[in-house]
């Protein structure tokens, strides 16, 4: 039991060490403003659980009822597994609270920073290095 606990805790330590190094990919870092974070409530329309990056398409409704179509990307499935993600993590219709680093040019795209899924589970991705 003790050695299992140590292995798990060591895995968590490794996770912290790992998380920063895999951020930059496919020009993602250069497209997003890493000094800003926006939090939104939205409804999932697509959950693309695939390479090269998992990405979520979701609709955000403002007070007037206008709908903005957003997309947020994150790591590949094999890397995102370290945060407990799998093919069941999201599905169309899910209501989410999502925080992203937004597109530098103001388009409705972002890089995932934090996600709260309908079950209340929180995924916190550490801030990427500049």
């Amino acid at each position, binding site marked *: 039991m*003790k*050695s299992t*606990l*140590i*292995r*798990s*805790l*060591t*895995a*968590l*330590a*490794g*996770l*912290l*060490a*790992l998380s920063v*190094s*895999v951020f*930059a*990919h*496919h*020009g*993602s*870092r*250069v*497209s*997003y403003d890493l000094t800003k974070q926006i939090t939104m409530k939205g409804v999932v329309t*697509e959950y*693309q659980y*695939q*390479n*090269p*990056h998992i*990405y979520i*398409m979701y609709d955000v409704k403002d007070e007037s009822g206008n709908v903005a179509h957003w*997309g947020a*990307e994150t790591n*590949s*499935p*094999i*890397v995102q*597994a*370290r*945060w*407990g993600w799998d093919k069941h993590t999201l599905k169309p219709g899910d209501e989410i609270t999502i925080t992203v680093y937004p*597109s530098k*040019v*103001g*388009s*409705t*795209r*972002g890089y995932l920073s934090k996600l709260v899924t309908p079950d209340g589970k*929180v*995924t*916190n991705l550490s801030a990427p290095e*500049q």
Partner: protein
Amino acid sequence: MRRALGVGIVVLMAVVFAPAARGQGSRGAAPSATKDLPFDAHDLSGAWWRHGKSGSTLSRNNVPPMTPSAQARYAANKPGIGRPERIVPLGNDPAMACDPIGFPRVMFYDAYPTEIVQIPGRILEFFDYFYVHRTIWMDGRQLPKDPDPTWYGVSVGHWEGDTLVVETVGFNDRTWLDDDGHPHTEDMRVEERYRRVNHDTIELNMTIIDPKSYTQPWVGETKTWTLDPKLELREDVCVPSDEEKYKEEMRVPAATAPGK
């Protein structure tokens, strides 16, 4: 034991989320229970996490001067990943179109492990990144004299004491050496030296020799590989149709101002 437990509890308190440990095992800096076990220096088998200080390249700091032709190719290569001063949102890295990542670039991604399998006459290295393997021939053969150009080359190895020395030739010139877009020619030769320094650790030193691209051999930093008995490689393929879909739905819109 108690001290490690105490440190572990501090780490646990500091962590907000609860990731699954999913057969990924441990790759952190905590002391290993198996490091000082006896080992066979000629047995490199197992799944190894790879670590380097330079990230996804042979080395950051001592890249030799490039020849004029290599410089021209380097300037034309537009990375989508890597150093901020070089990357552009819509680069031309062939790996982003799912061209084979090739050797030695496949060796440099620290987030992805290598699994080594030794069978008579061969050592096989498996990579979940791009889901490929390479063969190191250990049957005493010579390097081919006039090999066909390939993405991963032809590798021949032999033991010098406790060091596995591997030489690879027979490359095409279509792969990048790293995310930064360093080029190479078909005449490149790569030398690797593997040494298992304790039960849990392999040290890998690699040199790239390509006089048509680099005026001196490019001697890499020492990469450190650590054994993980619980690690199971997973499929991580590059799918051209998924790349296309991702590009249309995310990569291009992220870099395109609204109304354009």
